[in-house]
């Protein structure tokens, strides 16, 4: 029965497909990638696509309903909503990417170090995270902006930092499960050092979960930045930013529902696109899905 060890076919593994190809083979991944690409392209080419200057007041009559002149209508100051959404994509995507990037990096550093080192570093890092967790994210973001001063850049940093406890907790919990597995101890026994253990063993096994968390966190970040904008601490008027447009449109909800509808749809579409792309990415990163 010793031949059981040799039952697997002897041919070597076929060459691994590149990551992007594996994403695109997944229908969700293809749609998500197409949508994200379209978003980025329209943000980049907004100056050519937009029919009006997004900050120009009285481009049309205030609160014009969507029609031939203004495809998505105008707002209370007569600015073209379509133009503002196209230009807004630049700001909103930036906010989302930078804020999520900050949360992801800081959260991973905190969570993985805590799980790997254990003992005192773990206690200090995770208790600090717990303290931050006990405040609502908006409050932390507000405190940050209060110290740094109101500006769009500071709002991005504030939103990113405020979400770190959530990312750190998730990374920590996932990493704890990996640290307890024998392969991790096997790597320790094989003589791997701290950096190698964290970067080569822990990070790749935690990343799939964190990608899903990040795609969900993107919507949170956009909305949190909008909340700051609403309070006058984020995007400064007349900069077009989706979250700000959404909250500003609230005052005219009954008379001009398109003011909320289109920015809201834009946010929803963005979040949806990143979610399905993130899902496909997670699956493509799973070694078991390879070759399918």
């Amino acid at each position, binding site marked *: 029965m010793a031949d059981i060890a040799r039952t697997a076919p002897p041919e070597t593994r076929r060459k691994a497909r590149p990551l992007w190809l594996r994403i695109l083979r997944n229908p969700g991944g293809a749609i998500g990638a197409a949508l994200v690409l379209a978003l980025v392209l329209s943000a980049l080419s907004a100056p050519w696509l937009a029919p009006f200057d997004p900050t120009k007041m009285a481009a049309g009559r205030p609160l014009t309903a969507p029609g031939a002149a203004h495809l998505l209508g105008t707002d209370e100051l007569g600015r073209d909503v379509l133009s503002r959404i196209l230009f807004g994509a630049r700001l909103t995507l930036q906010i989302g990417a930078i804020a999520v990037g900050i949360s992801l990096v800081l959260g991973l550093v905190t969570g993985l170090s805590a799980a790997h080192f254990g003992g005192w570093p773990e206690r200090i890092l995770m208790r600090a995270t717990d303290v931050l967790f006990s405040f609502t994210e908006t409050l932390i973001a507000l405190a940050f902006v209060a110290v740094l001063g109101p500006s769009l850049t500071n709002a991005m940093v504030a939103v990113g930092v405020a979400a770190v406890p959530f990312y750190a907790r998730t990374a920590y919990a996932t990493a704890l499960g990996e640290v307890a597995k024998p392969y991790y101890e096997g790597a*320790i026994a094989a003589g791997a050092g701290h950096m190698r253990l964290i970067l080569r063993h822990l990070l790749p096994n935690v990343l799939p979960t964190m990608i899903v968390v990040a795609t969900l966190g993107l919507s949170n970040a956009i909305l949190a930045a909008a909340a700051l904008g609403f309070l006058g601490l984020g995007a400064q008027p007349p900069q077009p930013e989706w979250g700000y447009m959404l909250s500003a449109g609230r005052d005219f909800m009954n008379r001009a529902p398109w003011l909320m509808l289109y920015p809201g749809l834009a946010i929803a579409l963005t979040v949806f696109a990143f979610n399905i792309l993130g899902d496909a990415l997670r699956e493509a990163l799973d070694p078991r899905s390879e070759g399918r």
Partner: protein
Amino acid sequence: MPLLDVTGLTIAFGALPVVEGLDLSIAKGETLALVGESGSGKSVSALSLMGLLPRGARRTGGRILLGGTDITDCGDAGMRSLRGPRMGMIFQEPMTSLTPVLTIGRQMTEALAVHKGMSGAAARARAVEMLDAAGIPQPAARMAQYPHEFSGGMRQRVMIAMTLALEPELLIADEPTTALDVTVQAQILELMRRLARETGTSLLLITHDMGVVAEMADRVAVMRRGHLVETGTARDIFSAPAQGYTRDLLAAVPRMDGPLRRDPPPAADRPALAFRGIGRSFGARGFLSRSAGHRALDGIDLAVAPGETLALVGESGSGKSTLGRIGARLDLSHEGSVQVAGEDITALRGAALRKARSRVQMVFQDPFASLDPRFAAGDTLAEPLAIHRGLSGRALRAEAGRLMERVGLSASMLDRLPHEFSGGQRQRIAIARALAPEPQVVIADEPTSALDVSVQASILDLLLGLQRDTGLAFLFITHDLAVVRRIAHRVAVLRGGRLMELGPAAEVMDRPRHPYTQALIAAAPVPDPRAARQAPVPPGPAALAGPLREVGSGHWVAG
């Protein structure tokens, strides 16, 4: 007319058939053992009888008769009315098969109220009666307790009591004792035998353990890769198996009456690995807490000579795994020291510790978790080769290939990921990783427990061969005494963190002196239905745990 009559049962996962044309029948009061290795389709067949197939699996053919009525397509509601009163099921994992948030009493009376329409007081009385029959002391008081207040063996007793309280005609037990210690297993098997006999319940026992089959079964059905290989009475299957596969399966089972290892270890003047007065506590917190914690290990002195295999035997909670981890410096001892080839590694840190670790390597139990799922076999082997032996490029690749061949795999498999290997092959890669830094000692923590018997035998052969060729010392941690006979030169028996008995394998296995060792050996099931069934000896209280005294040449017993 048989109680259960299954004809042509076919089950598929998607388009992949996992069971094809299975025919089974069980008479009233009979025990049928369904045996096979992992992936043989035995568990899925049982789940299909209960209408509990996992998502993605479908029954695509066959007919199931229970007591003469066709229950093949009786739907969800129909199955629900059968589960409990007519068919009961016991699962492998007693830790997770009871609801943790409800008391035992509540869980038992609920089933009685629903299926038997019993009133509160009647259901309660019946539940207490069944717990008592299942050997649970003070059943009335324990009704108010939650599952976490019971040990694994006690929980399995509760499960059995709960299932049999409904007086099912058929009890399906899927590996009911696999997660339990041998002494507990013996008691649970005895309990199932007795209750089945008293109530006239038929038993479908699913197991991979031929020892359990021999003790329990009237008839045996052997499955392989979704097909029935052969079926017959237990005596016939064990004494005159008709099929080659059955013969191989039986031959691969390590036996308690099998031959002991004969070749003596080479003479050596200093041990490869030595534990001196090791003590370890868990749960003790210095700060704001006065609890002393649980003593997992207490004053352990052990040494393994080069080229020797020392088997460390004990049940769950005995501290055997903790001792192994301390030996590889994956855990820290609170007292005592660990020496590798004469060097004290207890207090080493940083680079010195990493260097020392190359001399002690570990092989773990679970072949599925012991390799990084994102590392190809070659990457896993490259890690220690690059770190400890400074290899790179073509030399590293060649050495990794050589290691693969050393453990019976081929160099062409280096680029495969762990999920592309079988369990036994993964365990071979884990062994190759342990060999990579050219260690002096390998600590193997239940390396064969998660493997099928046929694979188990080949892994044991591999380890024996490696030891002969390289003079490696093995600390072999296991609960399986039959495995001990095959590979150990010496045996150490651990219980409650203390050594009970230590000596040459021949002495300890054939002339055990400590009552606990005797109970362990008596509890191990013998894969022979003609062997006399002994009533299980309870291991008794943790008495006789004093210091070791020598009773023979190198044979020490706690007194």
